[in-house]
């Protein structure tokens, strides 16, 4: 923090000597900057506070947690971890694996097939193309919850209850991924390449898989992350579809935790459960935050 502070002063001093329009702002600008940093730091700390407490509490024993806040980690991380993973009513490791399967497959399917659909609209001319394009844009904002009743009864009729099919397959039709892909293709997929591939005798399907997909890689990666995270965090649909405890995904286990009697909790274990549900996504986020934030911004400009 202190280092930043000097640089700010330095740069504002430079501006003053440079005689640009900032000159009349003078000390006002410095105060403005300080206010900005204070407010930004406050909200950043607010965001970090709850997660810091979560991580700290995951390392503390139950009796220690009940005494109140602490800003220093305790020594019970191992104990909490072992008691969490050996809990039979909430098989958390099973849940993490289930979530990984569901989210991983949904992510892959949604980027692959939505890119394919975007490719169809972008490259080919056919009847009904504009209708389909506009139709997909319209369905983009329609929430999936409203068809949940139909999905639920349909899955009951077809014996798809308690399977992952209704959680994974619908990801193939992902309007937001489609839209992002088509925007990306407009800016970075030259049609000449496809023409050239045709002249070289490549089939259309092969062209898409071996030439087009590699070009789309950056966009695919960003959308893959978003699809993965939303499937990982999805609560509403799985809560209706999945019943067996070994098939439950993480959000359902969190719900199970909530419906237990909270006065009898081992809180070290509870925080460990929450920690395990959150941490994989957080690790991915902090490794790739630059790309993720750029992805949000690009989506925003285009949308």
């Amino acid at each position, binding site marked *: 923090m202190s280092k*930043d502070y000097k640089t700010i002063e330095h740069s504002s001093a430079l501006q003053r000597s440079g005689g640009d*329009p900032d000159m009349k702002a003078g000390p006002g600008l410095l105060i403005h*900057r300080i206010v900005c940093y204070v*407010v*930004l730091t406050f*909200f*950043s700390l607010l*965001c970090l506070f*709850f*997660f810091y407490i979560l991580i700290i509490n995951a390392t503390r024993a139950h009796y220690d947690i009940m005494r*109140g*806040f602490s800003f220093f980690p305790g020594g019970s991380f191992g104990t909490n971890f072992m008691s969490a993973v050996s809990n039979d009513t909430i098989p958390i490791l099973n849940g993490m694996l289930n979530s990984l399967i569901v989210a991983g497959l949904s992510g892959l399917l949604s980027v692959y097939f939505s890119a*394919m*659909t975007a490719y*169809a609209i972008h490259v*080919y*001319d*056919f009847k009904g*193309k504009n209708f*389909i394009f506009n139709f997909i844009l319209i369905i983009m904002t*329609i*929430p999936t*919850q*409203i*068809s*949940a*009743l*139909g*999905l639920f*009864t*349909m899955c009951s009729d077809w014996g798809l209850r308690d399977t992952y099919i209704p959680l994974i397959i619908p990801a*193939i*039709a992902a309007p937001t991924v489609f839209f992002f892909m088509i925007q990306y293709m407009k800016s970075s997929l030259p*049609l000449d390449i496809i023409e050239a591939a*045709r002249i070289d005798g490549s089939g259309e*399907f092969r062209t898409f898989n071996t030439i087009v997909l590699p070009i789309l890689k950056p966009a695919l990666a960003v959308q893959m992350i978003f699809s993965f*995270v939303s499937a990982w*965090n999805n*609560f*509403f649909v799985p*809560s*209706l579809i999945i019943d067996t405890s070994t098939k439950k995904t993480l959000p359902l286990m*969190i719900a199970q*935790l*909530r419906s237990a009697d*909270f006065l009898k909790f081992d809180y070290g274990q509870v925080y460990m459960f*929450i920690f395990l*549900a*959150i941490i994989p*996504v*957080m690790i991915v986020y*902090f490794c790739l935050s*630059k790309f*993720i*934030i750029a992805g*949000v*911004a690009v989506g*925003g*400009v285009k*949308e």
Partner: protein
Amino acid sequence: MAQPAAVGMQAPAKKKGGIGKYKKWGYIFMIPFVVVFLIFQAWPLIQTFYYSFFEYYKTGLTWVGPNFCGIDNFAAIFDFSRVNLFALTYNTLVMWAIGFIPQIIISLLFAYWFTNVRLRLKCMGIFKTIIYMPNLIMASAFSMLIFSLFSDIGPINEIIKTFNNGEPFRFLSNTWSTMGLVGLMNFMMWFGNTTILLMAAMMGINESVIEAAEIDGAGSGQIFWKITLPLIRPILVYVLITSLIGGLQMFDVPQILTGGMGSPNNTTLTLIMYLNNNIGTSRNYGIAGAISIVVFIICAALSLVVYYGFAQDKTTREANKRAKAALKAERARRGQ
């Protein structure tokens, strides 16, 4: 959302590499998307519509119906003597607003600071990374965390007890504090995302516009209110409406926080929580269908506002034009 609309309208005319013999591939590549959409979204939606006109529920172990009952289900959800649509919508919208109002204010402020050329703030990358983080966190886990911290025996109450003669403040037995916690979580989860969207919009403003205003002697406050805000209005509308649509779908956070009860006394029960109860626990498909259809109609109407609102955004273009002309005149005057 609507810019896409505009893009879509321009797209048709261009002839792309679609000579006759390749045409069929356009259809082939669309098959998976269209088929899955029809089976897993369109058909369930039709089913939902269908059930909304039927009496169809489970009592004990026996099923009643499906018997056609006209609009009885819709009449039932407008019945004020029980849990009704207005109360649910009110609960949902109040919790949405508690989160959204601070969210839009803080996001506007941050986006303005981040894009302000004169401020030249450092470490923006770190701030952006931190404030966007809660958006990716599992809402149900976040809600469970807040529940643990604010429960009657949680650490927050340990602090409150020391000031309150050993009495805890029961956050979850009180409508406003429960709503406040939901609003706080929604705020934290979404203000980073909104900041990034608004930043992108503000960076898209033509710099000459701001320059012209500065030459005319406008202060930074005036520039913000009279130039930046009107110019990003389309994105503001987009943020407002998508947030509203998202707010109407509010489920995870209040569901976990109140254990699915909407406690105290159904005052924090949202539309989708009620829908979930009717599908999953009480198995009243008629009511569930009627709720779904009403939410569908509201969301569709809101989406159309965005879709058409963007297409005809004259103000932006006019303001840009005017500013450019002013700058040109100014330059010419100086040049002489």
